[in-house]
């Protein structure tokens, strides 16, 4: 009997090892409670927010360009076939990816806005800057969200229960919040001195000029021409950014001098062959290729050196494949895999459009002058139009030459009311419902407040 007891004692002693066996530590995860509670935690979480912003970039480009008349389908994936054939459905996974990425950005921004004020010991300048960045990120995500999906849920906290059952808010209200957030950000974002060549402060992270550029775009969409002109002018005049001499550098290089906001990848985090990797879609698999119509536009004299946006390879020319590929999204080792969200050329185009709409056509402060800045750089013939309507259309064309595959086309056509005319001519399947993307099907199913609230036509 004694030996039984010994064994039992032995076994009980061995229970001391319980803790290590039953509660191993994860090596690659940080638990919620530890993530933001001391000054050293601020930088990692801030980077997490920029990472979330970067997560929205590729799908935003897809929304802006694949929905419109730039592309034709040349691959095997259903999602891209839907974009190519203009048969976009609520089940399209990019529709879901963009939505998720936007709300992920809003979540991290809200997390910072809620948590950071309570973290002791953070220098005031850091606190202000990171909070301003969070405001900007939330505004940016809501801005894209509302122009992609229409009325969207307005998420202002990290409260899980509330955000699981949240209805659509009118676009006007969303836009008001976007403006408020941008203005809050503008106040506290750091200023960068004119002539700065530091890509980290100029384009990688936010500064006052970044926010002005975003506001310029915001006012452009609002048709608040005066404000759009002013803010775009402020960015142009800031002296931080400068147009590259060769347009091909814009196509083929990361962090050019004209980048205002550029989300960066390095060799080790290159999205590679993932489904929303632009390089994979446009170069690797060539799931979509430039539409014949766009090719004609971009190889014209009017486009000038901006024909570099696309390239031709005779080996690809077979069947319905026209042999052309988009070149703006290269690989990590080519140093060309970043996504530019805003660059200086857009500011010229915003100012040109704002001026044209206000009747400021000619002269040094006229729309034509702004357009010719870009055309000169591209070795395209200068224009000398005088009629307002002609200039407004010239801006639309110039945006194609200059900004093709940077995620603007569809948003531009919709905001200018030109979508129906342009897209119906491009695809027989186009209908006005495609002026908005559908709310992702899974969101309609899982969020009770969205049940039956799909965008019209889907």
């Amino acid at each position, binding site marked *: *009997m004694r*030996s*039984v007891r010994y*064994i039992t004692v032995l*076994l*009980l002693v*061995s*229970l001391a*090892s319980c803790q*290590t*066996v*039953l509660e*191993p530590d994860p*090596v*690659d995860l*940080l*638990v*919620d409670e530890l*993530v933001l509670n001391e000054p050293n935690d601020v*930088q990692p*979480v801030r*980077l*997490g927010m*920029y*990472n979330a912003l970067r997560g929205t970039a590729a799908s935003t480009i897809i929304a802006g360009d694949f929905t419109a008349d730039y592309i034709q389908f040349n*691959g095997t994936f*259903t*999602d891209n*076939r839907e974009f190519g*054939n203009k048969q976009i*459905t609520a*089940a399209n*996974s990019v529709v879901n990816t963009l939505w998720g990425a936007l*709300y*992920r950005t809003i*979540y991290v921004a809200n997390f910072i806005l809620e948590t950071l004020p309570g973290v002791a010991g953070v220098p005031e300048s850091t606190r202000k800057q990171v909070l301003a960045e969070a405001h900007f990120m939330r505004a940016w995500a809501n801005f894209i969200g509302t122009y992609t999906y229409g009325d969207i849920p307005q*998420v202002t906290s990290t409260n*899980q229960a509330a*955000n*699981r*059952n*949240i209805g659509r808010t009118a676009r006007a209200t969303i836009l008001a919040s976007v403006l408020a957030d941008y203005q809050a950000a503008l106040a506290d974002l750091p200023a960068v001195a004119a002539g700065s060549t530091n890509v980290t402060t100029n384009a990688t992270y936010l500064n006052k000029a970044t926010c002005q550029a975003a506001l310029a775009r915001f006012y452009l969409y609002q048709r608040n021409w005066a404000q759009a002109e002013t803010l775009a002018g402020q960015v142009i005049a800031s002296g931080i950014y400068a147009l590259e001499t060769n347009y091909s550098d814009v196509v083929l290089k990361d962090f050019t001098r004209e980048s205002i906001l550029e*989300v*960066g990848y*390095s060799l080790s985090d*290159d999205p*590679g062959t993932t489904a929303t990797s632009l390089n994979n879609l446009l*170069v690797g*698999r060539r799931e979509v290729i430039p539409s014949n119509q766009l090719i004609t536009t971009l190889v014209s004299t009017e486009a000038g050196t901006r024909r570099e946006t696309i390239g031709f390879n005779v080996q*690809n020319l*077979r*069947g*319905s*494949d026209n042999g052309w590929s988009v070149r703006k999204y290269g*690989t*990590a*080792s080519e140093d060309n895999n970043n996504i530019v969200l805003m660059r200086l050329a857009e500011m010229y185009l915003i100012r040109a459009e704002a001026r044209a709409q206000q009747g400021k056509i000619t002269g040094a402060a006229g729309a034509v002058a702004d357009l010719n800045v870009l055309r000169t750089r591209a070795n395209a013939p200068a224009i000398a139009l005088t009629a307002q309507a002609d200039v407004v259309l010239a801006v639309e064309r110039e945006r194609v030459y200059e900004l093709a595959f940077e995620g603007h086309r569809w948003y531009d056509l919709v905001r200018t009311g030109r979508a129906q005319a342009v897209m119906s001519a491009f695809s027989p399947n186009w209908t006005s419902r495609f002026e908005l993307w559908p709310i992702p*099907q899974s*969101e309609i199913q*899982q969020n009770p407040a969205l049940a039956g609230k799909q965008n019209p036509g889907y």
Partner: protein
Amino acid sequence: MRNNYRLFWGILLLLAPVQLLAQGLRISGRVTSEQDGQPVPGVNVVVKGTTTGISTDASGNYSLTVPGANTVLLFTSIGLVSQEINAGNRTVVNVVMKETVNELAQVVVTGYNTTQRKDITGSVTSVSPDKFKNIPVASFDQALQGQAAGVQVTQSSGTPGGGLTVRVRGNTSISASNRPLFIVDGVPVEDGNLTGRDFGGQQDNAFALFNPNDIESIEVLKDASAKAIYGSRAANGVVLVTTKRGRSGQKTTFTADVQRGLTEIIRRPDMLNATELLELQREAVTNAGQDPDQRGLIKGVTDGVNTDWVDEVLRRGVYQQYQLSAQGGNDKTQFYLSGSYRDEQGVQLNNGFTRYTAQFKFDQKATSKLSFGANITASYAKNKRVKGDNFLDGVYSGAIKSLPYYAPYNEQGRLYGPNDPNYAGFPNFNPVGQAVLPRFVSYTAKFLGGVYGEYEIIPNLRFRTKASVDYNNITEDNFEPSSTAIGGFLESVGGQGYGDFSNTTLATLISTNTLAYNFQLPGKHRFSTLAGFEVLSRQQRSNNVQGRLFPSDDFTYIRSAGVVDQGDSYLLNSGLISTFGEVRYDYDEKYLATITARYDGSSRFGKDRQFGVFPSASVAWRLSSEPFMQRFRFLNDLKLRASYGFTGNERIGDFQFLGTWASVTYSGSTGVGPSALVNPLLQWERTREANIGFDASFLNGRLSVTVDAYDNLTDNLLFAQPIPLTTGFGSVQGNIGKVGNRGVELTISTVNIDRGGIRWSTDLNLSHNQNKVVELVSNEPIFRGYTADGVSRTNVILPGQPLGTFWGLKFLGVDPATGNAIYDDKNGDGRISPEDGQVIGNAQPKLTGGFTNRVSWKGIELSVLLQGSYGNSILNFSNTTLLNAGADIENNQTRKALQRWRKEGDITSVPRYELGNSYNNYHSSRFLEDGSFVRIKNLTVGYNLPRQWVTRYGMTSVRFYASATNLYTLTRYSGPDPEVSTLDGSTVSQGIDFFTLPQVKTILGGLSIVF
């Protein structure tokens, strides 16, 4: 929590010392079987004329205190011939007993214990190696196919060393594993795939590292009573594998086995030739209003080359296996030793599996109280793999799709690579090149070893401790040169070659300690009790590195890579601490009861749910022992059984309960981003199981029948509950939902003829399982599987439907007027949209079974195993590409495309071909087919040389045989093989054929010599 353990052990200590301290002489000994020399548990040993008695333990041992010398001991057990032995003045009495009735005396391993089949109150199926010795199975899970009721084994493809799906009584889980717990010699061994690289669908199989010929027995534990001793891991059934051990009292025998044969794909897909395809494609282009000539589809030119790509990439494979083993022992020491070599060429070029194994088992009885031993399995395998299934650059998958207009080699006999102007472009890659040019080799090594000691503390109270390790090392050595798709075509990946190299170590350490105590109370009340404590700790360590931009294709290791920009290292620990116990009771072998429970703590459960209890109880009544049954003399044995209990599934992944942030990057900097939401209440999935059944044996064992019926309900299903993305997250891990399994199982074994030297026996097993998702977080469909045209996904999880349900549009036929597909407009909105998606079928069979017949006559033997499945659907997803109604013209088409609609009035099920029209190719029930099949799984003819011939040369037996596996398949499925699963191991998306390599047919000759 420690208090709970104290309480548990306290109770055990109270139970244990029920010890009769009688005066007298102590006798001990071991009971073994005459048939195979193995120990027999559960034999009653009684001092004649008294009620003093005991039953033998798991190792056949007993200890008894007798009044004095010359006591007569009575050894009895149903199914064995009783013996009376006068002990004289011996203190050690070893007995050899003989079977009377088949099956009943069969020794069955029941987890931490062993018992005779007659004493089992739960549902346990045994598969002996005799049943699969002629079949060239690579792994023991494959050996279960068609052999056991309630066990469904599906081989995912014909890939050598490839994966299988094993399900015991259906699928219990949506997100956690559905694999049974596999225990080899007491160790929960690594299961599933060991390698990490994705090959498009087909994976490797960890069990292929075991040599099935080293196995002594396989037991499948099916009901709660049998399984609850494995607690939180038992819900999906438990498969216990015991390797061979030495036999006492027999001379050392040597066995040499040789098998050599050929393998071939069972059926080839029937694809169009160049001329047929060209005509079809021209029609599709014309129908789209375009000029086929302008697209380069020119008669007499385009079809100038006609390559049969499937022929180009397939071959006949050579299969060979050699084994030498030795087995022997005496009363004190027994051993088994074996070594084997197996080499199986795949039917795809450059595909093959080679394995070396060694097996050793040693048992020593040092004194009457102390015994110890060891078991060692060491093996090493080399798996040469090729891509397939879902990969565009696969071999077989690429070959079926490839256009016959192109040839694999140019005029100089060199392979065409990607980007070659004379070869079809993306999405086609030269499948011959994809087979022979890359290097995909995985090396796996396994060491499974254990040592045990057993000591009899007081008579019949035995302490056993065993420490084991399952150590696996996996090295994956892959390189794709610039002439392949990844190495050359995708510049973002390779460009100039792409190499990756990884190393993974999976180690499980386990310490098992049990106390077993057998005792008998006056009046034939026999008890057999067991209590145990187990600690399991598993560690996974892995690293990998990837490189590209190699100077040339002569440099294939990452040392020479220009850019090494991807790499990883990782460590993961998990653990389980458990206490368990079992009490078996019987009264006169007539009324039996078992109570089992396990108390598990797991590292995978949330802080507030770290420990769980899994109890079960069962009863059995041996009706045939009742006096009123004695008049049914044809009935040898009839036992009714019932059980009820709870089991769990803890394979829910690690750290799922934590709310976490993980490393993320931005522009060369690293930060943290949100990763998962917290759930401290996350716990095991729990299955409530009820089983009733009976075992009957008639006509001296010539007919035996086992029937079981069960009703299981799994609740607390682990589920990544989808939540609106507006929360910032897509899902949260929770325990939501219920899945039910109900079924009936029938096993019949008969000896139909046994006279005049002719013996014909039959084994039949049939299983019916009805699986149903009872409850989910909501009634909204949850989509899984592949993305599909026109609807969201190919599969759906929906309350009221089984797992593995197919989703799609309902295809109503082809409009004879237009040739377009007609789909069911389910919501009646006048157009076809994803909202018209509906349930179109499911992959779970209504009936599965196996039917074996063996006939022997004068040394000649013939055996046939039929195996089949009835009532399951297969999604022929390949046909969304191969019968695509002209959605694209980049792929070859199946012969069925010739039946397409061509002109008004055509009545057909194949829509009109029109280039670019994806409407006719929407994912619909058009691609769903009946997957029922019956297959001659194996046919073997053998001949044993007459004994007098072989003994002359000092041999015991010589056997020649010829065996054919997968000889013939009867099915209505239009694809090459109904037994495929492109998503190897998947539950919710099972039964999909997506360019999956069919099974292979193996014809072999074998020779087995015993000397």
